[in-house]
């Protein structure tokens, strides 16, 4: 423990950021400025050990990267992530009954904890969840009696002796196969999946309902939350995200477009329409605008690893809630407050509907979220310092320390600052992930995946 600490550099950066000095490590994806729509990354997720990193894209593909084993000779950096497996998870579908096309875009990927040699993950598009098994094959049987090596069958009459086939090593092959398909349970668009701490069940949430599944059973699910009003004209809010508590298998939360979070206990009743706790912060009336409802809509909710806190992301801020206190968050961090005066243009160009995600580091001391211009932000909960960094190919020398960035809201722009009006709103970082144990982060720009590590000395 102490040894590990000393390996990490504890610098106080010139920009007043975190103790960590973040360095560029790798970037994956096409270099073109012309982004193919299918290549747009739609989800990023580390597995429980951090050895595997999965991405999903708009084209329905899943790409899994694996970290190289640490090389004793290269003690100054951790292993690189290289492509481990690529497969087509979802295909576009057409619902003939409703004349609706179902997008193949992967909305979420969640890893199951590893139980045996194979890896399992859940991936979902708008309507269907699939359980994928990713397994390695590095041996193959050779020496069959009735088959040639190339697979052709031998004429049995030519067999004169018998031998026992043996396994011989082969080039590593990684196979992905769909083991379960959980379909036809959602009328509306699935926005979240979350695996229960019992590792047997999981939930899937769409705009109005949350269903509970058993990983082994595909033809049935239990509806545990239903907020669809009897009369759809009375609809006032939708579910935007849902997650199981990391430790209590009976507890889950779901966030709404109205900025509220409800915590539900499945022991209380079969249908958890009545919440056990309601987390809501009263709106500041002085901030009221045409777009108040939009910017208060929660786009992501994540429990801390400890399970004591949860974090929510709305358009302009990140809030940390203590599960024991419902009436307000314990911490609020402004991600890009300078956008508050630009909401009208952001509404026009649809950016105000962007759904940013957020994540915790392994020790729950730092939270991270994305912004525009390929900026991403980190907030240290202990030191109360924050830092803005940029994911850009310009800093692409490995072990180059990233320079903190600053946006100038108004008035005189200092050197190296960027004015709000010159931000590129097409370059948005919606998806980020933090390694569960190390200071390694994966940051997705539109079609590229950046991996940053802290500087090790």
């Amino acid at each position, binding site marked *: 423990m102490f040894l590990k600490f000393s390996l990490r550099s504890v610098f106080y950066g010139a920009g007043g950021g975190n103790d960590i000095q973040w360095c560029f490590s790798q970037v994956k994806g096409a270099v073109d400025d012309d982004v193919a729509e299918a290549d747009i990354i739609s989800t990023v997720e580390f597995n429980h050990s951090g050895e595997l990193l999965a991405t999903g894209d708009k084209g329905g593909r899943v790409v899994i990267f694996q970290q190289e084993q640490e090389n004793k000779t290269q003690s100054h950096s951790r292993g690189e992530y290289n492509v481990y497996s690529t497969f087509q998870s979802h295909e576009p579908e057409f619902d003939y009954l409703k004349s609706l096309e179902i997008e193949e875009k992967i909305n979420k990927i969640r890893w199951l904890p590893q139980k045996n040699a194979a890896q399992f993950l859940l991936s979902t598009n708008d309507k269907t969840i699939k359980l994928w098994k990713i397994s390695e094959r590095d041996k193959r049987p050779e020496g069959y009696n009735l088959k040639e090596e190339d697979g052709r069958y031998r004429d049995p009459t030519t067999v004169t002796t018998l031998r026992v086939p043996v396994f011989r090593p082969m080039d590593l092959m990684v196979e992905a196969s769909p083991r379960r398909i959980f379909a036809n349970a959602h009328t509306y668009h699935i926005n979240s999946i979350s695996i229960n701490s019992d590792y047997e069940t999981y939930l899937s949430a769409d*705009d109005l309902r949350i269903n509970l599944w058993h990983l082994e059973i595909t033809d049935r699910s239990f*509806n545990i939350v239903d907020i669809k009003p009897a*009369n759809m004209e009375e*609809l006032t809010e939708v579910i935007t995200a849902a997650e199981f508590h990391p430790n209590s298998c009976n507890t889950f939360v779901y966030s709404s477009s109205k900025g509220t979070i409800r915590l539900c206990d499945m022991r209380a009743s079969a249908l958890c329409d009545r919440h056990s706790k309601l987390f809501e912060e009263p709106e500041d009336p002085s901030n009221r*605008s045409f777009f108040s*409802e939009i910017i208060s809509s929660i786009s992501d909710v994540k429990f801390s690893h400890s399970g004591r806190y949860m974090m929510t992301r709305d358009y302009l801020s990140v809030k940390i809630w203590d599960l024991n206190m419902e009436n307000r968050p314990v911490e609020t961090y402004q991600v890009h407050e300078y956008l508050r005066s630009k909401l009208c243009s952001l509404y026009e160009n649809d950016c105000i509907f962007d759904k940013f995600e957020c994540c915790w580091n392994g020790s729950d001391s730092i939270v991270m979220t994305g912004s525009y211009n390929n900026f991403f932000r980190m907030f240290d909960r202990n030191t109360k310092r924050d830092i803005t960094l940029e994911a850009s190919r310009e800093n692409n020398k490995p072990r180059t320390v990233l320079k903190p960035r600053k946006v100038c809201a108004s008035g005189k722009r200092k050197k190296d600052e960027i004015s709000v009006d010159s931000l590129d709103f097409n370059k948005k970082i919606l998806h980020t992930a933090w390694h569960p144990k190390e200071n390694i982060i994966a940051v997705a720009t539109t079609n590229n995946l950046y991996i940053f590590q802290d500087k090790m000395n």
Partner: protein
Amino acid sequence: MLRGRRRMECTLDAQSLISISLRKIHSSRTQRGGIKLHKNLLVSYVLRNARQLYLSERYAELYRRQQHYPDGAPLLAMPACPPPAAAPPELAVLPLPADTQDREARSCAVVRGGAELLEVPVCAAPPELQRAPCRDSSPGFYRATGSAGPGGGGSSNSAAPGLLYAAGCDFGSGGAPHCSSRTTVLDLDTHVVTTVENGYLHQDCCSQCPCCCQPAPGLASPPPTPGTKRKYYPGQEEEEEGVEEGEPGGGGVAGGPPFAPCTKRARFEEYSAEHPQDSSNISNLISIFGSGFTGLVSRQQADSEQPLNGQLCSKQALASLGAWTRAIVAF
């Protein structure tokens, strides 16, 4: 809401916000992956907010002008609006404000609009959405009315489905402040946003309130005849609603009372046949902001027209609602 000096530009912004929002809802219907319920809901909130500000501006101005013509304006029938339920922004059933007398005096001045507009000012914000205090001049909803309807309150609905407009009563300068009005229209088919200036004679306007809707010459062409297949015909809604009922939900999905799409459609056709769209030549005007389906009944109508009930009003509202509500109701 935004106050102070910015209010004027906000009013203008409100108009453009309304048209932008409507455009977004319209385009969402053709997006890949189906209509996104969440986004449409948020857009409808913006619509509601913009409408509230826009109408409150208009209403305040009309009230000020009304003070100058106290005896010129006949009373306007007030609708009986049941209290709001969960009050969605765009379909809020609007509570009648306590000071009805006051409002009636003001409201009559408001009658006009694209030749077919009956504006009934009611406090627009449903309770839980009224974090900021609702200004007492917040007007309510629009309903497109048939032109030249009899004064008894038979404001027939001539708005063509598939079209959206925001009627504004902008009192221009000059000797007949009552009678000039400006209408911002968005044609969902051609995506053309136009502003139509209407002119009325002051006395015509006042003498035939609430439905002094002599269409001004040169206004847009008559709405399409009933039965014309339009993009946002309730039939589409019916198709989606009917299908939705047959969804294979997860176990234990609680279904609400089924929609009655067929009934609504039938009523719409029947109604349109009974009240043929006439002289208004605003074929590409679209009525927006019909309020709650049960909130459109005027008292007089309730008395005089027997079949007029919540559901009839709902089809009136359907006729006057544009695609933006159907986008939501369609689920």
